[in-house]
């Protein structure tokens, strides 16, 4: 997405289209225009922005539609994909220069106008952006400069030279851009119009279909490519028109600077993005905007890439690739814009050069081919660095290689700013999509990023808060799916909490006969069911079976075939709603009893000594008044019970009629049972005094305990038995401190062994020691007994084993290592409060039904499955997420799309049996480009992380890591091969929507589970493994790529958060303070040179050296800065399902190591690659795949 956003930025270029602007968005055009890339972009909006990207995207969009999103993002190894595209174009231009003509032909056709526009735009844009341009240009200059230094660059220049032509093309592109932009400007709305024209392309077929037409657009787009060319040339072109493309330039050359500059630039782009969107709309509708934006970004990135990359590329072996990458970047652009133009002309040659991938690609994708024509340019573009070589068509591959060394040398460093920036992507999406509600009426819409605040209007598809997919456009055939390697998965959070502005799902009661369902596949009534025969029957949207409408449910249809009561019935008009379940949906055909909470407290020596027992008891006294009420009940229906334990268990009778509680000790842990029935589970209000008395006495009773051994399995068994005896579902809250070594079932031994790390046996550390807990979990699930585990270990306690039951029953684990009252109390209490209060469903079964053609095949998350389709959850709370993977078992049709229905049968906290239904419709595509354009990288990462984390159970970690890298390489290679315009193999081209895949993937690979540092304990790894498995997309996003906020940049007068920065140490300034959060921890990093005043204001101490590391909360000080920082913290805490631990880190302090671990773009202590290195590596992998 981010890429897309950049692409949008591109749109900005598109703005260059300003021509369009002229049409509509001058501003954009102006700015973006500068992005000369427009030329390229012109073709693709994307390209344009990046110069290349922005434009390209547009161009593509229009033409390719799909590509718009996906394709745009190609990265140069170094630079962001967009840039590459642009570059490509640029390069192409050169060669393509001629090509353009060729392409020109096509271009001309449509272009003329475009050209005019484009050019005009471009120029306009350029001028407008000129200033910007300068910067970019400056940056570009780098590139160029660098490039220039490098022969290749020179060549590129030369090419650029041609590029000028390309420039024209650019103009053309621009035109397109403009077109795109125009549309964009008119964009979103008008977009359609554009869409049509360009957007036609959007249609998967667009490229092909549009072919000619497209070309024209392409040509225009091609024009953009030139822009991209400008990249290579960018400088030039950029400087010229591109400047507008600032983004691109800025991005390219001055990664850092540009970013900022771009930022602004982008901001505008949005509008352009809007345009992009317009294009997108055609394809995906809303999404586009993002793409639009992204393009610009990419453009920037690309720009950066190209410039720097080439160098960089050259430097490392990957560099070559990188080199190529950068070029590739251009290719992107090339693809978009340039390709077309140059393609024709130069293509042949280029194609030849590019042969391998591109050629084929082209072949494969006729449409693209069209577009590709541009690609050939790319080929040439990539060439840019090696331009000369490129010039030698054949030389490309080898030449590059050969060149690489030289390039490498100069390009020793890849400019980090030039590579796709998550921050930028997030920012853009936020800016572009945060403002208006996301309306779910349209099939296959890509929702805004999880990092964006947006409202959802349910108009027939479920909210992205409930379901997010890796792609909203599903390949029609399994072959396609296999080819792309893009996993098709949905991340489902069935009981997600909605913001107060959104309505929770309506409750539908279909009476005694229960919800209306399809006779065959048992799907529930939903908006996609088709009523026929005057409403007497309905046809299932999943299996096509026709079912009689029961008389009581009959309703006439109106002239459109809609039921007259369409808007009165949530199940006909909304994506999410609930049914009241009948007795048939209940266990044993009996309505369930209200659930129960059982608090089970470890009272062994450690727990008592640390003050934990007292703390829990105190807290429970007040917390019990806040049990979930499930709707509008006056008091909670949930009953509570209490157990304490060490190596024996103590049950408490707190019956209201008793004067004092009774304690019942069960020492027979080998054969656990619950010693009492009546009086164990009680209503809080009725037994208030007895409970209070109990909670007062527990700490006293065990104050002198010397018992250090604990049991564990019997504790769960006891809770389970209690629930069984009470015939209800419920949740156990277990507060546990140590490895259960007392003689009892489930006894564990300390098997921690760090020597196993990086061996084939490492997986055993993640596996439970004994099967006992698995069986226990099974029993728990059967009873609806969910287990929440609060751990307070002082040493190894085998989370991997203890967590088994929790994990399989849908519970949560909380871990407070070395728990200390002063520092951890707040965090624990907050977690406990939230855990107790949150809405939770019990005894749940989830089933995902899909259209014929795909099938849910694999499930990830905290649950138990006894067959292959039903996800059984003893408990499911509002934070728990289940990731479902789909596979084809037949063909899908583009017409009908693919539907998902997730049905969750559960018992509410009030004891009501309900069915929650979420429906989602997705598009189907026959073009890979469509797939790539409608992906969501965050969701993809969520899936990949879960997949990998599960993999470590059975495979050596290295295998898992390699598989992960390989899969991503394949995904990207497939894109490169099939969707990106042909370009040099040395170019890294990333799909716009997956622009961030490498950086995020690298974060996953570097995570503690997959690559533990020496200080990471086995327990921590197991703990994190479990946590991640239940995380939703937003959580994985921040977990893997933490949010880093410069505190000193805080504007104390505004509500807004300071702009995040990228997770790299180079971005930290000694004079600043930063806040970093990853969902588990909050770090406050204090630079050594921070002003004393600030320190005084925030920490209440007078100097840096006096800041205490042990602080667990910030002192409450009455000054605006302190207030603001604390309010930011509170806000962050409120966003997360767990209370984050605050850690103060002083620069150059020992804790800094800990902090640096989270600067995920850097090399990690444990050997994790830096972003740049990884990108290079990735590129290498892709190249290998392509060759």
């Amino acid at each position: 997405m981010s890429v897309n956003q950049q692409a949008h930025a591109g749109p900005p270029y598109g703005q260059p289209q300003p021509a369009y602007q002229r049409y509509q968005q001058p501003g954009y055009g102006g700015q973006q225009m500068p992005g000369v890339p427009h030329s390229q972009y012109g073709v693709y909006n994307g390209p344009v922005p990046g110069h290349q990207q922005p434009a390209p995207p547009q161009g593509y969009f229009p033409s390719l539609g799909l590509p718009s999103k996906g394709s745009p993002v190609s990265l140069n190894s170094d630079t962001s994909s967009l840039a590459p595209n642009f570059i490509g174009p640029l390069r192409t231009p050169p060669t393509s220069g001629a090509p353009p003509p060729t392409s020109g032909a096509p271009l001309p056709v449509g272009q003329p106008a475009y050209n005019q526009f484009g050019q005009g735009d471009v120029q306009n844009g350029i001028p407008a952006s000129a200033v910007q341009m300068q910067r970019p240009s400056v940056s570009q200059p780098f590139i160029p400069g660098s490039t220039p230094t490098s022969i290749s660059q020179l060549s590129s220049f030369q090419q650029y030279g041609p590029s000028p032509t390309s420039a024209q093309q650019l103009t053309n592109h621009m035109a397109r851009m403009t077109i795109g932009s125009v549309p964009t400007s008119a964009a979103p709305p008008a977009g359609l119009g554009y869409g049509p024209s360009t957007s036609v392309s959007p249609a998967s077929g667009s490229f092909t279909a549009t072919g000619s037409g497209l070309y024209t657009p392409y040509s225009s787009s091609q024009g953009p490519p030139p822009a991209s060319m400008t990249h290579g040339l960018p400088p030039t072109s950029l400087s010229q028109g591109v400047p507008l493309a600032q983004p691109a330039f800025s991005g390219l050359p001055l990664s850092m600077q540009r970013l900022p500059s771009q930022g602004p630039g982008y901001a505008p782009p949005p509008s352009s993005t809007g345009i992009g969107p317009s294009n997108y709309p055609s394809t995906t509708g809303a999404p586009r905007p993002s793409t639009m934006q992204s393009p610009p970004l990419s453009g920037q990135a690309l720009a950066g890439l190209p410039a720097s990359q080439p160098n960089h590329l050259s430097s490392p072996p990957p560099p070559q690739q990188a080199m190529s990458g950068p070029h590739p970047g251009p290719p992107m652009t090339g693809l978009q814009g340039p390709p077309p133009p140059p393609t024709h002309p130069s293509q042949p040659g280029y194609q030849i050069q590019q042969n391998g991938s591109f050629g084929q690609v082209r072949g494969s994708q006729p449409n693209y081919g069209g577009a590709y024509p541009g690609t050939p340019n790319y080929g040439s573009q990539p060439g840019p660095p090696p331009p000369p070589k490129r010039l030698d068509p054949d030389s490309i591959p080898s030449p590059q290689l050969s060149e690489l060394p030289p390039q490498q040398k100069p390009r020793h460093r890849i400019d980090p700013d030039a590579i796709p920036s998550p921050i930028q992507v997030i920012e853009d999406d936020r800016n572009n999509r945060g403002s208006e509600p996301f309306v779910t009426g349209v099939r296959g819409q890509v929702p805004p990023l999880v990092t964006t605040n947006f409202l959802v209007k349910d108009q027939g598809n479920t909210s992205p808060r409930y379901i997010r997919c890796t792609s909203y456009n599903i390949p029609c055939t399994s072959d396609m799916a296999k080819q792309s390697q893009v996993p098709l998965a949905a991340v489902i959070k069935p009981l997600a909490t909605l913001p107060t502005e959104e309505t929770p799902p309506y409750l539908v009661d279909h009476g005694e006969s229960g919800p209306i369902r399809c006779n065959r596949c048992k799907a529930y009534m939903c908006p996609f069911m088709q009523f026929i025969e005057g409403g007497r029957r309905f046809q299932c949207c999943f299996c096509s079976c026709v079912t009689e409408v029961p008389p009581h449910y009959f309703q006439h249809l109106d002239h459109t075939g809609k039921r007259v009561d369409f808007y009165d019935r949530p199940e006909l008009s909304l994506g999410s709603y609930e049914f009241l379940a009948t007795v048939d949906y209940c266990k044993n055909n009996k309505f369930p009893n209200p659930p129960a909470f059982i608090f089970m407290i470890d009272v062994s020596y450690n727990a008592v000594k640390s003050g934990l027992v007292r703390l829990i008891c105190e807290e429970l006294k007040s917390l019990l008044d806040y049990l979930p009420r499930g709707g509008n009940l006056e008091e909670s229906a949930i009953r509570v019970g209490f157990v304490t334990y060490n190596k024996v268990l103590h049950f408490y009778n707190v019956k209201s009629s008793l004067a004092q509680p009774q304690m019942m000790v069960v020492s027979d842990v080998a054969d656990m049972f619950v010693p009492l029935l009546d009086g164990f589970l009680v209503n809080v209000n009725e037994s208030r005094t007895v409970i209070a008395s109990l909670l007062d006495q527990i700490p006293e009773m065990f104050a002198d305990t010397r018992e250090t051994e604990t049991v564990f399995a019997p504790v769960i068994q006891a809770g389970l038995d209690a629930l069984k005896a009470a015939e209800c579902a419920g949740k156990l809250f277990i507060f546990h401190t140590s490895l259960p070594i007392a003689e009892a079932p489930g006894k564990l031994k300390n098997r921690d062994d760090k020597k196993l790390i990086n061996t084939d046996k490492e997986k055993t550390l993640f596996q439970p020691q004994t099967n006992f807990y698995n069986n226990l979990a099974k029993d728990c699930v059967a009873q609806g007994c969910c287990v929440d585990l609060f751990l307070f270990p002082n040493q190894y306690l085998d989370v991997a084993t203890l967590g088994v039951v929790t994990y399989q029953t849908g519970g949560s684990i909380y871990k407070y290592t070395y728990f200390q009252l002063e520092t951890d109390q707040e965090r624990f209490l907050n977690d406990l409060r939230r855990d107790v209060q949150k809405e939770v469903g019990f005894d749940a079964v989830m089933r995902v039904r899909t259209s014929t053609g795909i099938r849910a095949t694999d499930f990830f998350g905290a649950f138990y499955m006894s067959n292959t389709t039903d996800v059984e959850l003893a408990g499911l709370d509002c934070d728990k997420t289940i990731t479902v993977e789909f596979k084809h078992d037949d063909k899908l049709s583009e017409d009908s799309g693919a539907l998902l229905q997730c049905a969750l049968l559960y018992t509410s906290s009030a004891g009501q049996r309900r069915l929650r239904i979420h429906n989602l419709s997705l598009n189907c595509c026959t073009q890979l480009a469509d797939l790539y354009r409608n992906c969501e990288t965050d969701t993809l990462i969520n899936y990949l992380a879960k997949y990998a984390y599960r993999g470590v159970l059975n495979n050596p970690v290295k295998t898992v890591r390699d598989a992960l890298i390989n899969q991503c390489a394949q995904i990207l290679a497939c894109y490169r091969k099939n969707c990106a315009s042909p370009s040099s193999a040395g170019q890294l081209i990333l799909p716009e929507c997956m622009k961030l895949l490498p950086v995020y993937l690298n974060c996953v690979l570097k995570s503690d589970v997959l690559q533990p540092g020496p200080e990471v304990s086995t327990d921590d790894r197991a703990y994190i493994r479990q946590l991640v498995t239940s995380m939703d997309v937003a959580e994985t996003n921040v977990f893997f790529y933490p949010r880093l906020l410069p505190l000193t940049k805080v504007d104390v007068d505004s509500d807004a958060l300071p702009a995040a920065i990228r997770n790299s140490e180079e971005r930290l300034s000694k004079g600043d303070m930063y806040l970093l959060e990853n969902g588990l921890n909050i770090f406050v990093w204090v630079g050594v040179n921070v002003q004393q005043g600030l320190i005084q204001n925030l920490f209440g101490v007078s100097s840096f050296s006096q800041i205490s590391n042990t602080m667990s909360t910030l002192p409450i000080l009455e000054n605006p800065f302190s207030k603001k920082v604390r309010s930011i913290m509170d806000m962050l805490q409120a966003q997360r399902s767990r209370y984050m631990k605050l850690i103060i880190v002083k620069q150059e302090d020992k804790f800094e190591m800990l902090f640096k671990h989270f600067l995920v773009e850097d090399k990690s202590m444990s050997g994790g690659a830096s972003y740049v290195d990884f990108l290079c590596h990735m590129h290498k992998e892709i190249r290998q795949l392509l060759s």
Partner: protein
Amino acid sequence: MKYGRSASFLTGENQGCQRYGPQTGSSPSSCIFWSLNLSDSMATYLEFIQQNEERDGVRFSWNVWPSSRLEATRMVVPLACLLTPLKERPDLPPVQYEPVLCSRPTCKAVLNPLCQVDYRAKLWACNFCFQRNQFPPAYAGISEVNQPAELMPQFSTIDYIVQRGPQTPLIFLYVVDTCLEEEDLQALKESLQMSLSLLHPDALVGLITFGRMVQVHELSCEGISKSYVFRGTKDLTAKQIQDMLGLTRPAVPVQQGRPLQPQEQPVISSRFLQPIHKIDMNLTDLLGELQRDPWPVTQGKRPLRSTGVALSIAVGLLEGTFPNTGARIMLFTGGPPTQGPGMVVGDELKTPIRSWHDIEKDNARFMKKATKHYETLANRTAANGHCIDIYACALDQTGLLEMKCCTNLTGGHMVMGDSFNTSLFKQTFQRVFSKDFNGEFRMAFGASLDVKTSRELKIGGAIGPCISLNAKGPCVSENELGIGGTCQWKICSLDPNTTLAIYFEVVNQHNAPIPQGGRGAVQFVTQYQHSSTQKRIRVTTIARNWADAQNQLQHIEAAFDQEAAAVLMARLGVYRAETEEGPDVLRWLDRQLIRLCQKFGQYNKDDPNSFRLSDSFSLYPQFMFHLRRSPFLQVFNNSPDESSYYRHHFARQDLTQSLIMIQPILYSYSFYGPPEPVLLDSSSILADRILLMDTFFQIVIYLGETIAQWQKAGYQDMPEYENFKHLLQAPLDDAQEILQTRFPMPRYINTEHGGSQARFLLSKVNPSQTHNNLYAWGQESGSPILTDDVSLQVFMDHLKKLAVSSAA
């Protein structure tokens, strides 16, 4: 041998102050008794027997002993005695020193009045092994005029108080069933609370409750009542139980330091067993809050009752904390165990609890297993010196059959009633804590009975609430009668009435005659923990004359104690009935009776009418007749539980009570004279009489037909018929007197002619008039009994016929 000639026919005490020294040994005075005629001797023997019983608590079947094995076996009734070890002796103050023992390791008899003493040499000769022993230094001042008590004839029974080991207070562990009706539980709770006030403040008490689960209550908790809970279905070993109760401190204290250990011990146990003065309030409250077992009992089911595990835990708890200390486990149960080890019946109500019929048909699924469980427990308990009481109150059976060994082997009480809310239970329970003239509980603990005999005798065995200690010795016979093969038994709990039957065997060979006037001696040494927690030793030494059955049969015959013999034979019969088929036992009894009659009857061969028995045997056949009909041998009309209950009491009561059990006493009240005992015969049931029958287990007051009519008419309320009122009142008062003293309290039945409860009376009387012979007997006397049982008359006729038959 030296004193053999001088020995009196009766023991020395009878002759006043005669002592057994060498000097007096030659006294010829004893000869006078030889000339006594039979009737005189009869009277004298009765006195003698009574005196002996009062002083020593001993009744022998034969008071003159046949001097050879052969003759002894021909006597039919074995030489045996009923011993009441702790018979109350208000006139016998205990002495405060240790007994002096014979130094021969295999003997160790206690110095007694029968020993020869050389005052000058300060030596004494053991009268069992003839070992000559030095007096201990403390006896330096001994002389003929300064004798220690144990040498005085009137101290043939003597109590020693010895100081050994630490004194531990008495322990009472209540094991309470909570599967009771609300009313019952309430009544039980009250009884238990009441009992706390009866206990010595230092006594340790504990509480275990059970139902579906078993809860061991910790009594020392403030603010929160704490209990350890056990699953009722799982049999746990003693070690497991102790581990789970935290009674075993694994090695830790040992490591930490030795001195701590002794202190630690009481600390551990104190969690469950607390001195009453400390936790009186707590426990009272705890009992007050005791709830019925909360687990739901669905219709058609019995509540799940884990008696077996509860007892097991109780035993394990005491075993781990206070082994070899006096302790009572008091089990209160309101129904049969329905789960876990020791279950007697399933929880399905549709399956009734086993009956005798089922048992005969081998249809009692759980019986064997349950019995085994309880036997194991009982043996463990006995080994620890603790005892188990069972208070079972329910309308149906409660599994006493299976659980009987718990009480029978440990000397505990068994009480059976219909409900805890009856005076029967309440009074009985209260009476457990009754006190003697010294204000001490009438209970003693952890006793061991050691029997020593002269060489001519060996010990066959014992029957009573005891277990064998497997002490082999020279005086142990190979032929077992009852619990044999030992000369020591353990009696974990005994009260002043507890009576054991001890069977001997004469081993003297016929060809080695005992000199004239030789005496055989038996010494009973009972060591026990007095209820005051003192350790005491009671020593009873008795001697009887030997007689040659061939020429002195009449002496032997005259010295026959038919009452004791009847009880001793009955005990043997009942003991056999526990393991043998009922009819076999009856046949055995019959044969013994016939042989006895053949041996001692006077008759002409094959002439039944000529048959006569001497006075000393005259009642014996009648006892046997009633014994045959008694519930101890007949199971018809009795449930297995009832049989077990009756047998339990029969095996431990003293002679008088046992006789009442065998042949109930019937008193008649009428206007024709003062109350008088009447024949236990249907002919005694007359319209104008009130009858009072005491069967030990029941007290029946039966109003004759006319009396009942008068009472209905209300004459007793009319002033002019005050005498009638008094007549009505008289049996009530007498009954009350019995009720006041008996343990367990009998079932009190007030009925009248035609009343349904009259069956208790009708089933006991000799059916001399039945529907079969009613008209032959005429209308005047008594009322007919509807039975096919033979009457005493028929029985006697048969007996005579068989006895005189030459064919037999």
